[in-house]
């Protein structure tokens, strides 16, 4: 059915909670499109022939096809199209950097704003969750077993795809709850945990087994997983090891890794008054780093009641690696950006608590190997930032537990597992890997893309082995 196109050059804005209100609560910031907004926005899609958006999607969702369904008000049809390619649509619609992926290639973006693909994906997933109560059907079993290490976005995607192909999939998770970074890292106000839980319930409904409290490399090795009848193993163990700056004072009370701070708040629910997990209730907080994790930590600190929260970043505003939307949201909520600033020492009082952060000002010099202008210290620019808490959000490295207990598994000097191109095959036969464990810290959707590619490769490998 032909639809009347909507030629508005701007995309329909996302309704959000007022910044002055939301900075005091952990409820979701973005409220989601209404039905009418979604249908109208969908009509902005030209359904163009080349579909450049689709090739820019790491999991290759047939974007124009699902948007066409939305325009025709066939929401369930739209959901079915998305779910063919993505195991976690409600998650991706919220946390994907669409502006760097699908939406960056949208034809409508040439003379205006791109179609709000991410917002539509979110709408469709939410609509399905609220309106379709029936569980997905259990696929026919093919009698082959696969083990997956890590119940984060990469492992869950691989699990979903393999289960749909009929494999008996067991996912081993080290923590007490499945979801990986979706539950311990990304805060409730960006990704409500009930949504993650529903997506995981859908995977369980198609036969995926999730075993929590299982640290592979310790309680079972990869070799033992093969002994248990698994024909392939996928490693999606992420990049969980936090980096510190190695400056004096990092062991003072009140210095957190972003991982620890966010895990206490998200996984252990320290933001609820009933939580049994403690967290420092800070007055003035400095978050070091400029990525999405830094924004999450800063915005969480604000919501925990901190009066002043700084983002301390050694490059400028233009160089912040975080999504633009996250930076804007943080600014609206009153986060103070101290860019071109770098900490050199954490200061402590007699009780061993943080009482300040000594910083230097920076200026941008020549572009480095990565093409970014490298910051250099301005002479005699030292000053002290008055803070009682410092949160390090300067990146993470892959966890060594698996590579150190799996003979023959190759890793590079940064601890990332080495794989053969896109299908994720490691140096061990039948062992595949993807996501942050291979790339180092990256995004949810890239990890999902890797899980998807590996699932396909694992299916081909097991079929060829048994034919």
């Amino acid at each position, binding site marked *: 059915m032909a639809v009347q196109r909507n030629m508005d050059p701007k995309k329909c804005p996302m309704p959000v909670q007022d910044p002055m209100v939301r900075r005091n609560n952990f409820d979701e910031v973005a409220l989601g499109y209404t039905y009418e907004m979604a249908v109208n926005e969908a009509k902005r899609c030209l359904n163009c022939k080349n579909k450049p958006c689709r090739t820019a999607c790491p999991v290759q969702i047939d974007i124009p096809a699902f948007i066409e369904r939305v325009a025709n008000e066939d929401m369930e049809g739209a959901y079915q199209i998305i779910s063919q390619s993505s195991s976690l649509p409600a998650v991706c619609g919220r946390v994907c950097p669409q502006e760097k992926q699908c939406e960056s290639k949208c034809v409508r973006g040439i003379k205006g704003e791109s179609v709000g693909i991410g917002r539509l994906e979110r709408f469709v997933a939410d609509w399905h969750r609220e309106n379709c109560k029936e569980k997905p059907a259990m696929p026919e079993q093919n009698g082959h077993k696969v083990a997956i290490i890590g119940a984060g976005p990469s492992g869950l995607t691989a699990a979903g795809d393999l289960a749909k192909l009929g494999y008996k999939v067991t996912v081993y998770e080290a923590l007490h709850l499945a979801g990986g970074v979706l539950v311990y890292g990304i805060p409730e106000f960006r990704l409500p945990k009930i949504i993650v839980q529903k997506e995981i319930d859908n995977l369980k409904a198609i036969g995926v087994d999730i075993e929590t409290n299982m640290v592979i490399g310790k309680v079972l090795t990869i070799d033992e997983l093969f002994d248990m009848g698994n024909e392939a193993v996928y490693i999606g163990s992420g990049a*969980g090891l936090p980096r510190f700056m190695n400056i004096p004072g990092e062991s003072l009370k009140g210095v957190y890794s972003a991982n620890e701070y966010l895990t206490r708040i998200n996984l*252990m629910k320290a933001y609820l008054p009933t939580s049994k997990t403690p967290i420092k209730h800070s007055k003035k907080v400095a978050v070091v780093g400029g990525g999405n994790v830094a924004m999450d930590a800063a915005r969480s600190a604000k919501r925990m009641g901190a009066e002043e929260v700084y983002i301390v970043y050694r490059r400028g505003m233009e160089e912040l690696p975080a999504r633009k939307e996250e930076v804007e949201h943080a600014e609206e909520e009153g986060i103070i950006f101290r860019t071109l600033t770098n900490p050199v020492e954490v200061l402590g009082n007699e009780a*061993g608590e943080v009482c300040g952060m000594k910083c230097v000002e920076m200026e941008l010099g020549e572009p480095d190997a990565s093409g970014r202008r490298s910051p250099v210290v301005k002479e005699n620019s030292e000053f002290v930032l008055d803070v009682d808490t410092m949160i390090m959000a300067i990146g993470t490295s892959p966890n060594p537990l698996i590579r150190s207990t799996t003979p023959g598994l190759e890793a590079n000097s940064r601890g990332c597992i080495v794989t053969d191109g896109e299908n994720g095959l490691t140096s061990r036969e039948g062992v595949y890997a993807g996501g942050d464990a291979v790339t180092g810290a990256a995004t949810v959707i890239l990890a999902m893309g890797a899980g998807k590619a590996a699932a396909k490769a694992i299916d081909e490998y097991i079929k060829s082995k048994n034919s």
Partner: protein
Amino acid sequence: MYKIVRKKELNPTVTLMEIEAPLIAKKAEPGQFIIFRALEDSERVPLTIADFDREKGTVTIIYQIVGGATMELNGLNEGDSLHDFVGPLGKPSETEGLKKVAVVGGGVGCAIAYPIAKKLHNLGCEVHSIVGFRNKDLVILEDEFNNVSDKLCMMTDDGSYGTKGLVTNALEELIKEGNQYDEVIAIGPVIMMKFVSLLTKKYNIKTIVSMNPIMIDGTGMCGGCRLTVGGKTKFACVDGPDFDGHEVDFDEAMHRGTMYRDFETHAREASCNLLNKEVK
């Protein structure tokens, strides 16, 4: 689920639990730890493994009631199950090549010192155990230590049992008597491990301590358990929990251990009040 097959009070504040966890029991080694959550909404708490039975498929933990989480654990009884129990985490204690060792345990730390003494004994090593408690009522595992030690020195702070004095007094005496130890293994309060390490440094005897800092995940993810060892940052959960006692910055570790003291006190009181209400 992780069923409690045995619960035994060792003294008024220290309790032993034997828990069904066959996969962990199969892999556990002395020096490693587990993380438990008693209930679905409990805090994650690390505890070093006190014993394990590979055939029965059980892991034994010994805990002291110090805060809300251990109080919740203590609220469970034989036949009940823990909500979460994960391990074995950390590196096992190194025992290879040791011929003569002094194992020093302080208070509830004896629960962790014991499996190491036992393993060394079974490997044919000469074991001198020195265990210290505040008073007679708090003594635990005396028979167990007796069974695996070539010599056992029982110390109490007030002299109500064994010899009055500190574990360091007994250790120094043994050293002065001419005992040549390949290694001293000290497990107990941080302050005790600090003073044992200072003593053995004087005599140039290699000393291993088992650190038990605050942590969440136990797999290297949160970094909350970091310590300074030989001037470098180490994570107790993946690099330890055993470290060279002559290299550990104990004062810093003691400071870090007090991070949530107010919260813990409050949580313990809240749990007590809840229990009181239930009793009524």
